[in-house]
């Protein structure tokens, strides 16, 4: 099903003929290289902002696998982000996990949650799918408040002490160091982008796009569309949880805001802004949106209004988002 066909942009042939010089891979690696080099020229403030943006962009990349490529509009992805956030945060505070183990715990929480939730919500489609995902996310939010004894609810809790040092392969990483944080965030984003790219260029990606474009036809070509949608939802939810876990561990704060409806809507907006069903779109969208809020909030307290107006204008004039529009204007090979 495609909830709203207009912003959902098809990808061009995933067709074979891979030459030695893979243009698509090159473009995506170049984008990651630019992010790597940016750390040497940015001021402290932008350096920190970009680290945050890269973690949130990973969330957006994950969201886009379900929304952009499979055509399922979830309004409840905050629950997966929060599963990673709390999975990592609580593993650290309640179970005294180290940073690496806590990160894996967060991912695992997202994997389990998205599998269970997926098996239920994928019985619905269209508007009911949107509502049901939102309701589950709301239940998750209320749970984070209800178990305030552990989560400290709205106020949240701060990670401190040993958990601020990650141990991996015999090396130690100081998570309070801006450089370490930046490069871990970049590594996470790079993995998410490359996973997404490999997925959408594979035969499975072609099936997901087929489901988005015409689910009944996909079924009559022999595809178990339920299983493929579940797969997309689990990949999407798990990547979102990885972003949540990284956010908790890198920025040392876990709070119920991240489980609220706002964090279900944000990835949708980031993806719409950057380009639905494009690999790089979510990153660009997250970056622009972050700075849009940042800059307008300096001038007016009604910054959300300004952001809202900007988004409406965007949907009206660039319904396919930035990368989606570029793709229409000649970069047809961009996945």
């Amino acid at each position: 099903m495609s909830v709203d066909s207009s912003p959902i942009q098809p990808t061009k042939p995933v067709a074979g003929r891979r030459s030695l010089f893979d243009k698509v891979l090159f473009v995506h690696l170049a984008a990651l290289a630019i992010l790597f080099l940016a750390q040497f020229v940015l001021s402290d403030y932008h350096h920190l902002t970009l680290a945050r943006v890269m973690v949130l962009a990973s969330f957006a990349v994950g969201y886009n696998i379900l929304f952009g490529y499979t055509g399922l509009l979830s309004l409840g992805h905050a629950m997966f982000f929060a599963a990673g956030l709390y999975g990592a945060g609580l593993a650290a505070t309640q179970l005294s996990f180290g940073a690496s183990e806590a990160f894996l715990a967060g991912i695992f929480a997202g994997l389990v949650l998205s599998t269970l939730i997926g098996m239920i919500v994928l019985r619905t489609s269209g508007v009911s799918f949107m509502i049901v995902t939102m309701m589950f996310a709301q239940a998750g939010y209320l749970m984070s408040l209800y178990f305030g004894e552990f989560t400290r609810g709205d106020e949240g809790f701060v990670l401190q002490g040993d958990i601020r040092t990650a141990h991996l392969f015999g090396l130690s990483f100081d998570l309070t160091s801006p450089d370490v944080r930046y490069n871990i965030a970049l590594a996470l984003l790079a993995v998410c982008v490359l996973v997404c790219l490999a997925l959408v260029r594979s035969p499975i990606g072609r099936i997901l796009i087929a489901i988005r474009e015409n689910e009944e036809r996909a079924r009559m070509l022999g595809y178990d569309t339920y299983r493929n949608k579940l797969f997309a939802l689990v990949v999407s939810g798990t990547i979102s949880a990885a972003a949540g876990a990284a956010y908790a561990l890198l920025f040392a704060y876990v709070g119920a805001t991240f489980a609220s409806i706002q964090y279900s809507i944000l990835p949708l907006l980031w993806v719409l802004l950057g380009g639905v069903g494009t690999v790089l779109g979510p990153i660009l969208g997250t970056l622009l949106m972050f700075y849009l809020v940042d800059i307008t909030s300096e001038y007016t307290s009604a910054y959300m209004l300004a952001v809202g107006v900007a988004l409406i204008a965007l949907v009206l004039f660039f319904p396919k988002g930035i990368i989606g529009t570029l793709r229409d204007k000649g970069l047809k090979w961009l996945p």
Partner: protein
Amino acid sequence: MAAMTLLSTESLSRHFGGLRAVDDVAFTLTEGEVRAIIGPNGAGKTTLVSLICGRVMPSAGKIVFEGTDISALPAHRRVGLGIAYTFQITSIFANLSVYDNVALAVQTGMRRGGASLFFLNEATLIARVEEALEKVGLDDRRDMQAANLSYGHQRLLEVAMGLALRPKLLILDEPTQGLSDAEIAGFCDLTRAIAKDATVLLIEHNMDVVMDLAERITVMNNGAILSEGTPAEIRDDERVQRAYLGT
């Protein structure tokens, strides 16, 4: 005849509310034949083949394919067994390329053959897509977006997708609807070629096409089978003439 029964239905029914779209139908297909189903609008032809391919589930009755009861199998599993359906109303992936449309069909077959979807042999995939496109004559349009094909070519793309599934039973639901005379002639040749490897079940309003292609004809009316026989028998059947041919 020593011929094998490929498919049979027993007391197959499908009701929509009070409407008996398909009512207690016993229908049998022999392996390798080209069968046409004809009948007036609303006779239940599309519903009958939809029951066979699993797009619609029966209200009652049984469907047996190659000796196994498939009545409860979901549609995608039946495709796996070799039943392919091409839609009466053109249903392609309009936003995807011609290549991708057919590749989606080929992939199913390759996976059925045991290939993993993560490591599919691209060379085989490409070769088989091109083979299917060549058969229907769309090989020079493989990189076009499907939506930009002419209507006739979109119908051919549907057939190519059906072919690429390498089915045992290919169901064509009014494939010549909206085609030009030249395209219809080409389609008849194509069907004869397809019929060498597969059983073909054809719903068709164009009587010239039916008389040309079909070895046997089933006539439906009001959800039931009215008559069945060779083209000559059907042409001479009075009940058929009254109900349908109007001659």
